[in-house]
């Protein structure tokens, strides 16, 4: 028997069993006093509720997304024409360093952490994460870290060594401002959030699933988040060590990367990328998880080859540790290392390709509903495919030595991270907004939001393929007409197009912010199951109560919620509603 009742079809009013009266936790005393406030600012400041923390992660990430986005716009304004004068060299170097740092560590990672915090317990039918207090601790570490990194802007200049901060250029002589010190300290603090969050979510997923939910009945988003937490669990210690080395090098006269003392600067590169490559999957896999939820819902079909997607995700999680040196093909590692990492990189393209095939085949034969969430999900599949294919050209190491550190690689990782990670995040916004806030984002604005982002994204990053193959290196505060060339592929034209594209992109993202406001002011409540969804998080109120579920559902199927709503017609094998009213929606 279904424990949570299905809503009456077409009804916009939650048809829940009457909620039991809210239970206020008993007061405790002392330093570890249990937070009891349920409203007002104290309910946020002292909360240990995974949903509130998820929203706070999300809000923080969104703030830093705007910061990082404005930094990107300044970069593009500077590069719109040769000899740009918007920023000077010093400020430009700070700008691209902080753009990447912000987007990677303070936007995509916390946003994924926000989604994970909010939805993993709901998707597995748990009441909270395993360690709610540690969860709160993690969030406040992230916020503190983000603030510390950015404080440098006001205290003598931000970090200026590029987000991978290669030694010895990041040393005290070559980067004399204190930006890098703030950077190492801030990221160290933010890393605590990732590490504690990883342990917390792994324990939660392994121990707190609803009765009947075996690992292979677990929603795919939760699966991908779990893989990510394992990656973080092993990757964060590496960057922690590296950051400590750099801190000691800069502040206490240590000589870990100092050639005169017999050290090798490549040590930093190895440490950074042993963290940095798994980090790439940390950024992208949550979005893979999101669209692996969204595509089945709006195709009205289960995820094609669920076990393949799960195991390819896990395979990426393993092989992802063996490809770090493909960031170093030009570093001079010698042919044996280069050959091995080149082949390993080609190998990791296979499980990634599997996902694209599965998403396409999920849509195949379905009943596709083009909501904004679905559009962003399909956008991810197409744009990520482009980024994945340019990634294959990088895996060919000799070819990479022509492309690395040019705009071609900038194009590649923006197709992967903007077209991939960010499109997935936007798909998640539109899909889960009614769950988080009880109101649906405006679909009309959403459509504009989507199309402007698609156009802006392709106009900004598409031309960068050309710029890179025409030999424009990245991280140059100015480019010169002398190297711009003539004809159709001249750098001047395509730089200008990219800059115009970045403005279109800005408008598109601005529309999303407007949509948030419009939605917040709207009085229309979202239906309980607005998308005809498939997983457990939709089996409770919008937004869920503090304890998530009045009673924990028992799970019998992957896509449990869907199977409570629909049954198979034995003759046509199509699905009809359980009460036999025919198959709508």
């Amino acid at each position, binding site marked *: 028997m279904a424990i949570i009742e299905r809503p009456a079809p077409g009804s916009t009013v939650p048809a829940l069993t009457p909620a039991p009266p809210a239970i206020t936790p008993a007061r405790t005393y002392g330093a570890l006093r249990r937070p009891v406030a349920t409203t007002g600012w104290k309910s946020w400041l002292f909360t240990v509720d995974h949903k509130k923390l998820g929203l706070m992660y999300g809000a923080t990430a969104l703030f830093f997304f705007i910061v990082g986005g404005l930094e990107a716009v300044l970069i593009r304004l500077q590069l719109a024409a040769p000899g740009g004068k918007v920023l000077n*060299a010093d400020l430009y170097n700070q700008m691209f360093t902080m753009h990447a740092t912000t987007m990677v560590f303070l936007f995509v990672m916390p946003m994924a952490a926000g989604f994970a915090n909010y939805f993993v317990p709901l998707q597995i039918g748990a009441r909270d994460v395993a360690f709610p207090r540690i969860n709160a601790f993690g969030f406040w570490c992230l916020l503190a870290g983000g603030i510390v990194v950015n404080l440098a802007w006001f205290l003598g200049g931000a970090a200026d060594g*590029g987000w991978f901060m290669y030694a*010895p*250029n990041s040393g*005290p002589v070559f980067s004399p401002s204190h930006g890098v010190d703030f950077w190492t300290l801030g990221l160290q603090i933010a890393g605590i959030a990732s590490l504690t969050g990883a342990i917390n979510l792994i324990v939660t997923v392994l121990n707190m699933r609803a009765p009947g939910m075996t690992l292979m009945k677990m929603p795919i988003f939760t699966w991908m988040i779990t893989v990510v937490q394992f990656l973080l669990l092993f990757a964060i210690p590496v960057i922690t060590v590296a950051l400590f080395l750099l801190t000691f090098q800069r502040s206490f006269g240590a000589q870990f990367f100092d050639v005169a003392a017999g050290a090798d*600067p490549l040590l930093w590169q190895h440490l950074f990328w042993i963290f940095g490559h798994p980090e790439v999957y940390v950024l992208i896999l949550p979005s893979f998880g999101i669209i692996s939820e969204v595509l089945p819902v709006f195709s009205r079909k*289960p995820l094609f*080859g*669920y076990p393949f997607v799960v195991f390819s995700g896990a395979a990426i999680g393993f092989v992802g540790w063996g490809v770090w040196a493909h960031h170093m093909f*030009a*570093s*001079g590692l010698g042919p044996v290392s280069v*050959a091995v990492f*080149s*082949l390993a990189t*080609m190998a990791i*393209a*296979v499980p990634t390709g*599997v996902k694209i*095939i*599965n998403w*396409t085949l999920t*849509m195949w034969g*379905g*009943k*596709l509903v*083009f909501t904004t969430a679905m559009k962003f999900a*399909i956008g991810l599949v*197409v744009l990520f*495919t*482009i980024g994945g*294919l340019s990634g*294959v*050209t990088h895996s*060919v190491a000799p*070819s990479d030595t*022509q*492309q690395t*550190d*040019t705009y071609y690689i900038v194009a590649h990782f923006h197709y992967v991270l903007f077209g991939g990670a960010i499109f997935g995040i936007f798909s998640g916004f539109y899909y889960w907004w009614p769950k988080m806030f009880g109101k649906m984002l405006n679909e009309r604005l959403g459509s504009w939001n989507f*199309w402007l982002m698609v156009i802006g994204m*392709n106009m900004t990053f598409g031309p960068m393929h050309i710029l890179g193959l*025409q*030999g424009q*290196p990245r*991280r140059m505060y*100015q*480019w010169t007409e002398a*190297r711009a*060339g003539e*004809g*159709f*592929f001249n750098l001047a034209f395509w730089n200008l197009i990219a800059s115009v594209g970045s403005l279109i992109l800005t408008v598109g993202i601005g529309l999303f912010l407007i949509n948030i406001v419009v939605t917040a002011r709207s009085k229309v409540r979202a239906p309980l199951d607005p998308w005809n969804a498939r997983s457990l998080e939709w089996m409770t109120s919008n937004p869920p109560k503090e304890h998530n579920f009045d009673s924990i559902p028992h799970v019998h199927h992957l*896509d449990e919620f*869907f199977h409570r709503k*629909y049954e198979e*017609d034995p003759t046509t*094998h199509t*699905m009809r509603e359980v009460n036999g009213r025919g*198959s709508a929606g």
Partner: protein
Amino acid sequence: MVKVRRISQRVLVATGAVAVLGSCATNAPQDTWQPKGPNAKMIDDLQQPVFAVAGIIGIIVSVVITYAMWRYRDRGQPIPEQTHGKPALEITLTVIPALILAVVGVFTFRVIFDLARTDDTELVINVTGQQWWWEYDYPVQNEWGITQPIISSGQLVMPAGTKVLLRETSRDVIHSYWIPALNGKRDAVPGRIHTLRLEADEPGIYAGQCTEFCGLSHANMRMEAVALSKEDFAKWIANQQAAYRAPAEGTLAKEGESVFLNQCVRCHQVDGLKRPDGTLAIAAPDENVWSGAAPNLTKLMTRNTFAGAMFDLLRDACRDDVWKAESAEFGAKYLAGVDEACLNVNDLRAWLRNAPEVKPMYANPALLADTNGKYRGMPNLGLSESDIDKLVAYLLTLK
């Protein structure tokens, strides 16, 4: 909506096709798809099929997704059977890309090892990067007539049709040496020596750019590789080793020489330059510059660039004359060097007047405590306009 989607798909496909066609156009001097020597050609032969296959796969995926969006859009059809996949299809579609990549892998393997060869080298040039210029040092190689080490900067001069091996290192941070028409890039890492094969088929100038972020003026750290015929290269070598010719007494250049001795020689070496007392002037960049080196200016006017190849020594018209010369005439034009009529006097004077203003460098005297009082880049020397006149006249004699 679906229609708009399809149009955008087509635009994407068209963009891809345009990118593929890029190899056919004449374009920027650092075009990576225009190999001008066997090493770059090897890379290009390897990558073109990869780009083509990637493009085709991209088009197939886009077409399939577009078709699926149109074919399976919600037209009121019943909710389909909840199939969870077809393992056979899944495995087939996994194995096909794996096989394609295996084939690519075999060829990649070969090229990696071919490009790492050092046993067929005909000429060795040591290349040292520092903020923000490259030093070229030709060790003694008698078969090329190099009987004493030659130290140069600004332009790498090499014989065409010759297997040149660069031995790269750095004096401060990591830089990366990249002449796209001749080979991929290779980082110059302090404390390590990395090799890079270069070979140009034809005489000419090949542009490059430092491609590892190296601080403030990374964008201004450029390079040019000049390939000369073997005969012209021999002439170049002979001239580089020719004795210093002091300017005649009483000329403006002679006055410039004494300005040079007072100011510039602290960092910049001119081989054979003597002080008024007859002793050889030995530069001491190690005492004044953080990296310990400053460009050797012995034959400055045989080069076409200065300040880390950020500026041309030739006026635009003269520069175009050299860059665009037919390969048969190129050598003679290049070896003519820079004369007063062709000198890009504006940039050179601006540089002498206040170098940190035209090229961002950490040359702020207020920050010298971080570097034990040593400069990173050329400081503002506070030269008077008449000193600059004299220096320009003197520098023009260095050829």
